[in-house]
């Protein structure tokens, strides 16, 4: 059971790493605009079936 002395701090450190990653991404502005990026990924780079009207 003494493995707990290592595993528990390790778990908290891992949580801390994830948290740090989140904080960095917030500071870099990745969460400033939550509306546009989900749309942006839906656009093809070059539309290849141009419809003729």
């Amino acid at each position, binding site marked *: 059971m003494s493995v707990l002395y290592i595993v528990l701090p390790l*778990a908290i450190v891992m949580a801390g790493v994830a948290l740090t990653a989140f904080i960095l991404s917030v500071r870099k*502005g990745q*969460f400033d*605009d939550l*509306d*546009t990026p989900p*749309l*942006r990924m839906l*656009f093809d780079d070059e539309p290849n079936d141009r419809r003729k*009207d």
Partner: protein
Amino acid sequence: MTTLATEILAASPPATAPVPCSHCGQDVPRGLVEVESQLQFCCAGCRAVYDAIHACGLEAYYRLRNAAVAPPKPSESTFESFDAPAFHKLFVQQQSQTVASVDLMLEGVTCAACVWLIERLPHVLPGVIEARLSLRQAIVRVTWNTRELSLSRIGRTLNGLGYTPHPAKGLPRKQLARIEVRKRLIDLAVAGAIAGNAMLVACALYAGRGGRMEDSYREFFRWISAVLGILSLAWPGAGFFRGAIAAVRLRTVNFDVPIVLGLLAGGVAGIVNVILNRGEVYFDSLSVLVFLLLVGRFLQFRQQRRADDAVELLFCLAPSTCRTVRQGDRIEEMPIEAVVSGDLIEVLSGQTIAADGVVESGQSHVLQALLTGEAEPVPVGVGDKVYGGVPNQGASLRIRVSQVGADSRVGRLMRVVERGVAEKPAIVQFTDRIAARFVLVVTLAAAGTFAYWSRFDVAAAVDHAVALLIVCCPCVLGLATPVTLAVAIGRLARRDILVKSGAAIEKLARRGQILLDKTGTLTFGQLRLVCWHVEGFASTGDEQFKPLVAALERQSQHPVARAFCQALAAFELPAAQSALLHDVKEQPNGGIRAMLGSQAVHVGSPAFVNRAGISVPPSLARLQHELEQVGTTVVLVAVDGNAVALAGFGDQIRDDSRWAVHALHELDWDEQILSGDSQSVVRKVARAVGIDPSRATGEMTPEAKLALVREYQGRCLTVMVGDGVNDAAALAAADVGIAVHGGAEASLAAADVYIASPGLTPLVHLVTAARKTMRTIRVNLAISLVYNLVAAALAATGKMSPLICAILMPVSSATVLSLAMASIRRIDRKTPRNAEDKP
């Protein structure tokens, strides 16, 4: 004459199924349908944009778009002001020697297809490096190579695609708000991560109760829990401590005080117990509490931020450039901020005057409604003083600038506004009043518990008192109240009612004095066709002269002609008839005379028609007299020497004003009208909307309005509703300031609530929704009180273990939260949606 009328009627095309516009998808007016063409356009704007999109090879836009859009109205500007050094200094960030970026706010951004179209800009315009659009804010950041491309070219291209660009103003404020959002998000994440881990550790501790866990492990877990708990209190929880300290310094109690009381008691007792290795630790409950409270506050903050953003977009729409006349009559477009006293500026018809000054040439009408409350346009000529922020409704004017910025009339009014804000008396909010009582009761109960148990065992007494403080922590008010407010603000925003502070909702749920501005609030604030009467042509209907009058009035820039064109926009004179129209002459401030074939047509003031020697039938003359008695501007139409029709123009009362005034009265609000317009007009409007004329005051200066708001404030809750710069100070000083659709920038900035759709019906919705929101909050409060009573009783009798505490707290939060959501949904169903619901 009869033949003429029938000819005009016969020339209009037969009714057919509506044809959708090739660009915007809305129905094309019948007169504009081109029979043989595949492409149909409802207006010139749609045609231009359609052509531009095709010329750029961006037809896929139409495939991506899934709904009809509003017809675009591309600006006629050349955007040369975008190239002015002053503009670059104000709005452009130079990234390197050749690369620069600018934030532009775009009109007409609606959906995903717009994102695609705008972000294609680098493919369309070589030299643009990147274009990134933020859909919600409608702001695009364009990065481009300054050597290859001028900014005005980018402006023209965006405009051509149907998105008129404006420089994004208020960026420093936006930057501050962005930092605030990020900070709150980080706090939320840290609190959440700590709460999750603290709960896991707590689970281990609970599972190991009753000697199933070795003491050394138990101690280790308690220390980990303590470290996590202290971290939660010291980092994300620090905001509560700051708020409580600020309140204590001001000798008041706000909602942070009871929260901090619980956090502090739990934190200190927990640390002591960990060090002494005895008793209970509460850090799992505390860190969950911090997280839940932050969630509530974050949601409310985000909704208020959205409302704020939406209002800020409107600031960007305000004109930011003006035309400066340089040596040799050369016109240069430049940012308003760069205009200095002594400059000569040109203000075209329909534009807003950029600065205070004196007219050097030209004759026109200006509408001072937003500045003074006068609804009728004021004629101005050479030598007259004009004020910035006022629209020029007539011909173009050249103005020698005398004052700019803080010295101008608007600038001086803004100083009164600032004074209004600074001296706004603090009103004790509902939640803070509850908080004060809460603190008192909980401290008394804790002291009583301690006193009772200390007779037996001091250590147990401390434990029980601390447990009581923690379980009574006002989770419901800290979490459910902001969430309820956030949901209410969000729902109101969907109905174009933008609420910038939750406190406004709380205040509007009460009763008090509501002060209404007249011009622009109860009325439209501009000249409108209020009456159209045709003499003796009942057989051919009332509309027979409208196309002809519309065709003539389109040639004039007089405010009355503008109002005519607006009212008769749907009437087009058939081509066969307009070919016959010749010799159109306008007499300034009189009317228009023209020939239709061999018949003379006169449209103008009664004096102008009389001078032409035209007889007016008695019935028309009587109507004319009646209308003039109530301050209506009358226009007569004469064909072939006979007066045939009469039109009346005035500042029309909004359709829903009367209903809204009545509804607010039913809701126990005491209404009064304040206006800068003349007393007689104000009384007339008061009678028309159903307010006692003795409760209507005219000829009020901005200072007088402010003074009146102050006077009422001592006695009752005061709500000011207005649209103008002259209302701004009163809006800022009132307990709740509400700016209505079409208002001046200053009033938007000063108000707590902005109603973005025309009319007063939204005001009634707002008050009803506020009442229902507060009712929900009260119900939640009652339910949580029951929870707290049970928990406090358990704690005081010493039956409250940390396990029960840890279960009871989230369960109570969840109950109250789901109740808040459910009741808000009920509010939404019950509130009338449209003006049609009115009785």
